[in-house]
């Protein structure tokens, strides 16, 4: 069954309540997201999910040279960054999009839906 990465993007600048304006808004979103996660598990779609620390805590490493080069900050400077994600397993894109819409409502963010590469797709890349 295809797997999809559902990525949630949020503002680079965070408040004391993460991507949320107030404590109440944060707690509500957490509660709704928790309920959504439970439903994903119950329905057999859940593979993994987690939230990320803010983008400014990221480091980029380039290990292609003789010595690895480490730079501070996220890979791309942007106004919005990846804030969290789900990995789900769903029969097709229609189901993945429906779940993404529910997740988006629960966590109060836009969600990007992207399929993982499959063995078939990898084979096609090899053949060029």
């Amino acid at each position, binding site marked *: 069954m295809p797997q999809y990465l559902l990525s949630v993007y949020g503002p680079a600048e965070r408040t004391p309540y993460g991507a949320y304006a107030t404590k109440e808004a944060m707690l509500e979103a957490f509660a709704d997201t928790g309920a959504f996660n439970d439903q994903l598990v119950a329905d057999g779609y859940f593979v993994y999910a987690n939230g990320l620390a803010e983008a400014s805590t990221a480091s980029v490493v380039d290990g292609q040279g003789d010595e690895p080069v480490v730079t501070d900050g996220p890979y791309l400077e942007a106004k919005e960054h990846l804030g969290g994600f789900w990995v789900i397993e769903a029969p097709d894109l229609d189901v993945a*999009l429906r779940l993404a819409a529910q997740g988006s409502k629960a966590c109060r963010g836009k969600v990007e839906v992207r399929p993982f590469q499959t063995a078939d797709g990898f084979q096609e890349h090899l053949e060029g």
Partner: protein
Amino acid sequence: MTPTAVDDALTRALREEWARVVASLARRFHDLDTAEDAAAEAFAVAVERWPHDGVPVNPGAWLTTTATRKAIDRIRREARREEKYEEAIRLRDDDPAPPRGAVEDDRLRLIFTCCHPALSPEARIGLTLRLVGGLTVAEIARAFLVQEATMGQRLTRAKAKIKAAAIPYRVPAEADLPARIDGVLTVLFLVFNEGYLASGPSSDPVRADLTGEAIRLARLVRDLCPTGETTGLLALMLLTEARRPARVSATGELVTLAEQDRGAWDRDLIAEGHALVRGTIADVAAGGPPPGRYQLLAAVNAVHTYAREAGETDWAQIATLYDRLVRVDPSPVVALNRAVALAEVDGPEVALAVVDALPLESYHAFHATRAELLRRLGRGAQARAAYDRAIALSGNAAETAYLARRRVQLGR
């Protein structure tokens, strides 16, 4: 059999059977590329063989069988090369065709896949014309004024997304159906409109190939999925297409509805369109769902085409229909068209006040409408400026010619 008869049979087979062949192969082999290539190969074999062997008794069955063999050959070749036995195994699994109810028709699945909302609007149009309509990539590229390679890439990318993201090949669930049908109708309407007011200074002002193709696809969708809105869209297209012979003058200028030679309108298309509109009105009266935008627009066009001359047009009825349309679709473009009807009912001053409040500064029809209203109010200088804006923004050669003449008539 004469060569012409064979040619006719080939043309008819391409029109009538292409979508069915692609759709049944797509269901069986779960891959649009395989289905498209095998269907194209089967039609190529027909072009080669039918002139010698004669046209088969059942061309559709012949094409499907030939295409299926081509697809199996291709998959066997690949399976040998890649040792992908599992796919070869699938070939022995004689997937039975699903029951032939309207909603289960393979072609309907194909249309919904091509018009999936996760694809870009350009890709939806291109895929629908290629896989359902049977147009070649070169024809589609010409229709949308892009290079053939560009269109080819666009379609390849879209098919790759369908495969990688597992866009399903099926009729959507009941709950999603109205929105998804609406998406299909949007694609067909875009194809029709591109034909009816073609963009680009070098293209023909009206592209009968595109309007004709859109009508053919709208008939198919309505056969498969006869809702009020699919009927409304078909009626709207027929009543618009009926006026095509009168729409561009001998000198290549757009002729407005008021000035058109109504004797040149296609009476058969009008009669068919009127019958469809009467049918949808009866369905609504019998307790069906309220009319959507296509039914209302079809009704507007029915009122226009009922009038034997422009002066007989029932503008009050058109204004009422636009009032209802504004409630269904509160977009500024609809409000602009409503204002045109308002000008006939309540006068140009009232209409101009409505038009001036619309946020359509970059839309050529906004300036063209303002120009006509200002002209009728005797405000020549402002009308000239509005014509200039409209001419600068219009992409259609016939429309530009018309606007330029109207501008000149105003003098300096």
